[in-house]
């Protein structure tokens, strides 16, 4: 009978379905060991790129871009405020999608990515809120107002904090990962609210500077450095996410032979 079931499974899944090149990357990516080794090779280049792009964008935006006709030089805060807010939201999607992949395919690495994304997102949300408050003082006359955009960003910070807290609320790593993933997924409802808050409600916060569907509402001389800064923040995010994920891999796989071999090889050489 076994030859029959073998034949059946072969016709159904193909003899070498796991080795087929189109899926190979997916299985490899699921291996913490493969990710740890590969990401170690990417890190120096990614870090260098992030540093160069961020430095270019900062100098360009802070020293060379023209000042805003209404807001004066305080508008230059946009070059850190908008990229940080952008990545705080993109990072939330990355965290929620990683959680979903973990729930659906039980991929170990994706839960680690989810856990790593939470503190990074929280810090970026904090940066967006802080720079927004400092920008608000000369522009609106107040550090803080309870308008829809700012309040929904504060909720984003609490969602990140919730995902982080849930990681430590369970004894079992698996239960903690599942609970965090569910919270992350439910919280995604907040992202469109943040995006649309400036259109749905009357807010003190200005409307979006960049929209995918229309031309930017600012002059090219001001817009180009902002674009550079957003690219720089994405690169920085990649570096930070890889660093935090690698630590999570080490923490969870510290008893495995490959981590031990890694350490002895390092100590010997």
């Amino acid at each position, binding site marked *: 009978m076994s030859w029959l079931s073998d034949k059946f499974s072969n016709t159904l899944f193909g003899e070498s379905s796991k080795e087929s090149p189109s899926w190979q990357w997916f299985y490899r990516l699921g291996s913490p060991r493969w990710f740890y080794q590969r990401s170690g090779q990417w890190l120096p280049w990614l870090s260098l790129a992030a540093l160069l792009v961020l430095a270019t964008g900062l100098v360009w935006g802070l020293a060379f871009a023209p000042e805003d006709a209404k807001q004066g030089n305080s508008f230059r805060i946009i070059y*850190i405020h908008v990229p940080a807010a952008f990545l705080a939201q993109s990072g939330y999607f990355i965290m929620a999608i990683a959680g979903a992949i973990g729930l659906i395919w039980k991929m170990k690495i994706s839960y680690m990515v989810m856990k790593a994304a939470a503190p990074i997102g929280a810090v970026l949300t904090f940066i967006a809120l802080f*720079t927004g408050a400092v920008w608000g003082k000369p522009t609106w006359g107040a550090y803080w107002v309870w308008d829809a955009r700012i309040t929904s960003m504060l909720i984003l910070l609490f969602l990140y904090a919730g995902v982080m807290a849930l990681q430590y609320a369970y004894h079992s790593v698996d239960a903690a990962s599942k609970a965090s993933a569910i919270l992350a997924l439910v919280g995604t409802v907040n992202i469109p609210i943040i995006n649309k808050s400036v259109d749905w409600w009357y807010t003190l916060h200005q409307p979006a500077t960049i929209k995918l569907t229309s031309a930017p509402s600012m002059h090219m001389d001001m817009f180009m450095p902002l674009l550079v800064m957003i690219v720089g923040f994405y690169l920085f995010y990649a570096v930070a996410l890889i660093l935090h994920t690698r630590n999570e891999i080490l923490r969870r796989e510290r008893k495995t032979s490959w981590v*031990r071999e890694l*350490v002895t090889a390092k100590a010997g050489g």
Partner: protein
Amino acid sequence: MYFESFEALLHMNGHGVYVWSSLAVTLAAMLWLVIAPLFKQRALLQEVNRDIQRQQDRERAAKTASLSDSHEESN
């Protein structure tokens, strides 16, 4: 450069304090995001190294203990 002098860049017509304090806090937070995991990684690798050392010590102790046992038996 958009500004006439370095002082003008620092002052930004009175907005300098807002812009530069925003930048300082942002850079500090971003640096912390990449430096803290590097220290953490070193601590984790050291922990694994200690585990390996401890295991090796235990194995060595067990080996010498069994050797001395067999020595006593032969006497």
